[in-house]
């Protein structure tokens, strides 16, 4: 691990100001991803700003019936919150399907959104990787890419975003509230928060340098059955090969509305509005599910060892929709 200096921030604005004052600074919250990457020298901050004491560790009801989740709220606390279990089951299940009990006790809401890809080549500093070292090349495209993306990729990068939590939040239309060093606040829809790699895969999100996540706001829960289905190589404690966060409202054999977000497929939580439009009002049949999967996977391409993700996504989506309708 490279040497660094360390300090604690006392508020979101203070954290942003401290970041502005230090080139090469990083925020550390739970540390479960950052310290892992620092040990490997994938991340080499010269200064760490501890953001565990910003006073943003509460889950609060919003006036419209939603929730505001402080950035420091631990994944385990968020998953166990009675309001989340009652009204946002898809989020609770997504959180509980991620990582291990120990990691969830440390990992935070803000940190989970900002975790980096688990692409093997991103982690292997002896190999080219455009996300880790811009311009060095992508080892994954022609390499071992079983866990990597099939949609939203570019010729520079096929990394996936590893979060389960963010996939559920994408289906729930969460908004991310931030603070900058000058005190300016922003509310970023989660759809616009993570970036596709394009020509700049080293930039994961649309946060500005030093901008701090203060909270995540969930709108009131949408109507319908909530499901999080995660397909992975082990029954527990493994990243998704494919995951689906679904909120499906149905009546008399027809889908009234469906919100579908996917993990394991793309560099960001993947959601295709056209697929949801096609399902709205459609009969709850295998043909409707296939048509929706076609739209979700429009433009999808495998890179060899991850080709299986395309049919796996179709089957997982069909299974989730059938479960939503049939119980």
């Amino acid at each position: 691990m490279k040497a660094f200096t360390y300090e604690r921030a006392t508020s979101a604005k203070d954290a942003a100001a401290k970041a502005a004052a230090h080139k090469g600074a990083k925020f550390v919250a739970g540390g479960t991803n950052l310290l892992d990457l620092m040990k490997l020298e994938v991340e080499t901050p010269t200064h760490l700003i501890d953001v565990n004491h910003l006073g943003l560790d509460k889950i609060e009801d919003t006036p419209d019936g939603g929730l505001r989740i402080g950035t420091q709220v631990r994944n385990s606390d968020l998953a166990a919150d009675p309001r989340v279990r009652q009204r946002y089951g898809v989020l609770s299940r997504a959180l509980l399907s991620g990582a291990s009990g120990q990691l969830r006790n440390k990992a935070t809401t803000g940190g989970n959104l900002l975790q980096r890809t688990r692409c093997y080549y991103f982690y292997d500093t002896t190999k080219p990787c455009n996300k880790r070292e811009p311009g060095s090349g992508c080892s994954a495209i022609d390499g071992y890419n079983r866990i990597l993306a099939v949609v939203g990729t570019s010729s520079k990068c096929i990394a996936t975003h590893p979060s389960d939590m963010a996939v559920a939040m994408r289906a729930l239309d969460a908004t991310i509230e931030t603070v900058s060093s000058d005190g300016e606040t922003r509310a970023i829809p989660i759809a616009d928060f993570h970036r596709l790699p394009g020509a700049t895969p080293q930039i994961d999100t649309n946060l500005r340098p030093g901008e701090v996540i203060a909270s995540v706001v969930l709108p009131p829960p949408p109507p319908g059955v909530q499901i999080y289905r995660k397909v992975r190589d082990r029954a527990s404690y493994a990243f998704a090969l494919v995951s689906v966060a679904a909120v499906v409202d149905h009546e008399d054999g027809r889908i009234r509305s469906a919100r579908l977000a996917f993990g394991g497929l793309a560099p960001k939580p993947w959601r295709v509005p056209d697929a949801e439009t096609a399902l709205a009002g459609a009969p709850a049949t295998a043909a409707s599910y296939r048509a929706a999967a076609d739209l979700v996977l429009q433009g999808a391409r495998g890179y060899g060892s991850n080709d299986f993700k395309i049919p796996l996504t179709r089957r997982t989506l069909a299974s989730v929709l059938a479960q939503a309708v049939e119980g």
Partner: protein
Amino acid sequence: MSAGESDLEGPTRRAVVAVGVGAAGLVTAGQGSAQPMATVSSPPPTMPVRLNVNGQSHDLTLDSRTTLLDALREHLRLTGSKKGCDHGQCGACTVLVNGRRINSCLTLAAMHPGDEIVTIEGLGDPEHLHPMQTAFLEHDGFQCGYCTPGQICSAVGVLAEAKAGWPSVVTADLTQSPRLDEHEVSERMSGNICRCAAYPNIRAAILQAAGESAA
């Protein structure tokens, strides 16, 4: 305690003290104080850290990179917590911080002043075993024993989480308090790897300690 005097790492004592004082000023004064900068040629930044471990307070001067696990093992000589993978994948380093189980390898010692840290050494001793230690003995919940301190600390955390009503991903109804069974224990303990595969006995031990029937 003067365990910090026995630091294994390299910088001269004088350098440690000098930089340590600067870092202390920064932590207490917060915003607006002078900010120490790391450069290639300077000694690694160190800082004073007070850790409360197993009910005892320890004042250490640590390289800022020191993980909680390394502070426990290398500075406080509490070698019960094990370094397996050092990347949060195996769970051998699991300790309890403010009653919650965490991977001590993935957190910095400097991030835990004021926290109540309990390691396997603090759970019990040969004359006064913790009920979870007794259960592991009675059920042969180990073979080589390397993962065992982490398994036991994790299991103690699992019981606290279940008592608090926390669900797991295999809990059928999220709105109900879960009842621990083999399936629940397996899921909740998935962050602790046992290369000897003593899992059936580990599950039995945890269920005994939980006061539940494994049948």
